[in-house]
């Protein structure tokens, strides 16, 4: 925040000349990078299709409306499967995430040098890879079907849940743990009385939050063959049955809205 002397009067500037040069230079690089990226995209785009897009969009719209309502009778089982993929996947993930989180949190890990990095690696690698990719992989390994979907959702969610949970564990009030330790409690008792009650609300919140996300993700897992309503979406798209596509999209939208509502309600009840 320099005050400069210029021609005998004091001039206030927010930054020194050097600082503002650096800033301008940074912005310049940023803009340049963006322009380069944009050129890349535009090179690999067929602009003829893009100019034609409004017409095509209108065309799709007229074909997709009205949705084929009677098709909903065939969607019952896929919706049930989708719900199961999300719920069972979340439950499995939570069972695995709890030990990983305790191993990863600085204040509960048995060994910060060896075990913690392994736990963190599990978290980052399961978290970085989208559930669709896990599903692709699992389908290659154990074949297509709902089970692959459940496992894919479970693996993807481990890292997510464990990360939030270990952050909650690291934020607990240490004196409460100290007080339990001071009574002569064993390591596991300290865990059950000092730590678990403190992270239970966070745990419940994370579980519901992830379940909500998993409902969304499980609706599209079928695109790669991992069961659920996405399977119907994919086959309808393949035969360009747009009225069915629009109905499925409406159903997915409804599922997302309902799951968000449920998770908000449950979180409100817990906290």
């Amino acid at each position, binding site marked *: 925040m320099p005050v400069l002397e210029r021609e005998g009067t004091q001039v206030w500037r927010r930054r020194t000349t050097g600082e503002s040069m650096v800033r301008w230079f940074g912005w310049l690089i940023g803009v340049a990078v963006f322009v380069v990226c944009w050129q890349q995209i535009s090179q690999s785009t067929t602009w003829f299709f893009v100019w034609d897009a409004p017409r095509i969009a209108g065309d799709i719209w007229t074909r997709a409306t009205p949705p084929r309502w009677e098709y909903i009778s065939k969607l019952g089982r896929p919706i049930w499967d989708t719900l199961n993929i999300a719920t069972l996947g979340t439950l499995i993930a939570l069972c695995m995430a709890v030990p990983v989180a305790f191993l990863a949190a600085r204040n509960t890990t048995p060994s910060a040098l060896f075990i913690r990095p392994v736990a963190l690696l599990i978290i980052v690698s399961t978290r970085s890879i989208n559930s669709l990719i896990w599903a692709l992989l699992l389908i290659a390994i154990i074949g297509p079907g709902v089970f692959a979907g459940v496992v894919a959702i479970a693996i993807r969610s481990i890292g997510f849940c464990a990360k939030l949970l270990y952050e909650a564990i690291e934020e607990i*009030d240490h*004196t*409460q743990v*100290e*007080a*339990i*330790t*001071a*009574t*002569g*409690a*064993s390591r*596991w*008792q300290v865990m*059950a*009385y*000092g730590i678990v*009650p*403190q992270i*239970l*609300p966070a745990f419940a919140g994370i579980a519901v939050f992830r379940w909500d996300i998993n409902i969304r993700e499980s609706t599209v897992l079928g695109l790669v063959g991992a069961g659920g309503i996405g399977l119907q979406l994919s086959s309808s798209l393949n035969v360009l049955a747009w009225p069915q596509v629009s109905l499925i999209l409406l159903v997915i939208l409804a599922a997302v809205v309902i799951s968000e509502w449920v998770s908000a309600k449950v979180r409100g009840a817990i906290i």
Partner: protein
Amino acid sequence: MLRLEKLTKTYKTGDQALKAIELEVPKGQVLALIGPSGAGKSTMIRCINRLVEPTSGAVMLDETDLTRLGSGALRRARREMGMIFQEYALVERLTVMENVLSGRLGYVGFWRSFLRRFPQTDIDEAFRLLDRVGLLHMADKRADELSGGQRQRVGIARALIQNPKLLLVDEPTASLDPKTSRQIMRLITELCRERGLAAIINIHDVALAQMFVPRVVGLRFGEIVYDGGPNGLTPDKLTEIYGEEDWEATIQKVEGEDEIEAAE
């Protein structure tokens, strides 16, 4: 009963919190530990039950040296020492009863404690203690619904249900208003008398210490600079412990407060 021998604590940063402390506490004696913030009061209390590992020296409880115990034996030794904390340190999301019963954890196996199936004698004792501290009707309330003074009473009950020989009390009144502070101090000293417990009470309020406690130990920069009765705390002594300040007012206040006490 408790003897500290050359107890020293040096933190990793190089700060010497305790410098070869020598202290003896006989059975049933209540002792106040005073001194400015950072004098090592809290560290000393935590070194006794090894929530903080002492660097060197010995903590003799009866004839055992606590600093040499393995983790199992340390847990058994911790059962003998009840601890009361500054910010109550109740497990906020558990009920009052669970908090009190958590004092029995050292005596109960994991699964029993996990399923909350404590022996009937423990439950009776918990009820008796809650009655003694006046919170029986609150037994099934969650700890975070209580007021500060009530929480500290639960903290006291939790420490006593351990059936300890010694109470370690860390700033029991620091988060309480003056009236509640006195009630809590009175409760602690009364209970110690009833049960013949020794206690080390960390306290920064000199007047309060003088009011309730027969022996005062002054700590400064990790060294004991005063050890004697409450009446021996002259302005000079307080200056030695806390540094330069006008102490007459504090001492007068003590007398004044005694009158209020009498009037109550």
